[in-house]
């Protein structure tokens, strides 16, 4: 479900946590991994040479993504690992909405698979940078029915991709209000503890 070698390469950069949130890095790195992932699932009848990542939708997805993260920066130190999962999920939402991958003849399922694997590769790099356990050990095996339900639900509302990414990576998914960071169990707990500490002192 993810490109481990690329994730390791991304995480090896000394300033990777700041770097992955810059357009300068994103515009080069993401199209490259999307193309690689498309090659992996391509077939002789449907070669990945036809797959192209378009700059305009990619840029729209990027700016929408960092706009969300920018407003939540102060929460990141509370639960850095869970924040990485949330941030990767939000990126997936905007990639699914903007659809930067132009691959004539590919099915929606193939397109979604490549974009989901891209978000997971970014998450894997982010976790490695934080010193967290390998993402590949957390990934849940998804059956056909679950995958079909994923495609159906994100087609209706791309926001639920945050919850699905949590589900795929062994986290507790939050199906309601998936784009509200402070509603996530770990963040809700951390914030409650912080308020309790503040009240005591």
């Amino acid at each position, binding site marked *: 479900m993810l490109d481990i070698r690329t994730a390791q390469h991304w995480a090896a950069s000394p300033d990777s946590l700041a770097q992955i949130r*810059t357009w300068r890095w994103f515009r080069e790195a993401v199209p490259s991994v999307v193309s690689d992932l498309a090659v992996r699932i391509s077939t002789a009848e449907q070669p990945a040479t036809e797959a192209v990542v378009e*700059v305009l939708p990619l*840029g*729209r997805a*990027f700016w929408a993504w960092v706009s969300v993260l920018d407003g939540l920066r102060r929460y990141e130190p509370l639960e850095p690992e869970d924040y990485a999962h949330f941030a990767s999920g939000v990126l997936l939402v905007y990639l699914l909405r903007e659809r930067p991958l132009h691959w004539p003849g590919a099915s929606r399922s193939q397109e979604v698979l490549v974009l989901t694997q891209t978000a997971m590769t970014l998450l894997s790099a982010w976790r490695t940078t934080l010193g967290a356990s390998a993402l590949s050990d957390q990934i849940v095996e998804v059956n056909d029915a679950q995958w079909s339900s994923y495609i159906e639900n994100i087609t209706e509302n791309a926001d639920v991709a945050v919850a699905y990414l949590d589900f795929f990576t062994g986290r507790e998914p939050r199906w309601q209000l998936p784009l509200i960071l402070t509603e996530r169990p770990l963040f809700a707990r951390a914030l409650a503890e912080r308020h309790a500490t503040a009240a005591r002192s």
Partner: protein
Amino acid sequence: MSRKFLRSKVPASFSDGDIGLAMKDGLREIRFNLKRGAHKLVEGVQTATHRDDGTARGRLGEPLGLAVRTTAQLLRTADHAAVDLLSSDGHYRAMEIPLCPSATYFSAEHAIDPIRLFTRDHHWRYRHLLSLRGTHDLFVYEQRIERAGQQLRSAFDPAKAPAAPAEPWSRQQLNARIVLALQAADVLTPAIDTPEAGEESGLNDHAALCVVLAGELAPLLSGPVRQQTEMALRLADEACSTHQAAWARAMASPTPDTALAAWMTFVLRYL
């Protein structure tokens, strides 16, 4: 090509500097429209002569094409001679001068003819930007950039502007004012007889923002100066194209300088 070539006018009150830039703009505009006209003529004749149907027009195709190509070659020769006359800013043309933040031209420390340098630098930023975008039907008025710079500079002078800011503007506030001054100056104008002129003239706001953003970005990039300049303009262009709704909202807000400064701070954080 029979219409008048020159549309720029020298304003009623002008200085020696204005005359120099007006002449430069005028010459450049003639060159620009001649080059575009010659290009279209060659294209038009080529299209027509490809339809060789054995008629008189078809038989005339080859000599006509040769004549047009010779004319275009003569125009190019004249054009190169004109470039020599206008090329005192060759270092900017060749991207040999590193881009700097636009705001530095308006800081107190920048004492040596800052408006002249601001004008030259930004004129070439516009031209390089258009070239990178592959946009060839827009003309860049250098004199309008100078006027925008002069108006902005006078806003700092308490003698000329009683409403000068009590507190110094932040770097991004100043950048926002520069963008708005360039935007109001309508620096870009479509070439004569360009059918897509209306579409292209929408680039005025976009380009004003790009040239100022590029000045903030270039010092953060590594590599030779030319590469830095091209990359800074390209990144600024991509950011402005893909985040257009946000900056357009900022420009249309009741306090565009504040909103634009906030937008630029945000964008520069993630560029």
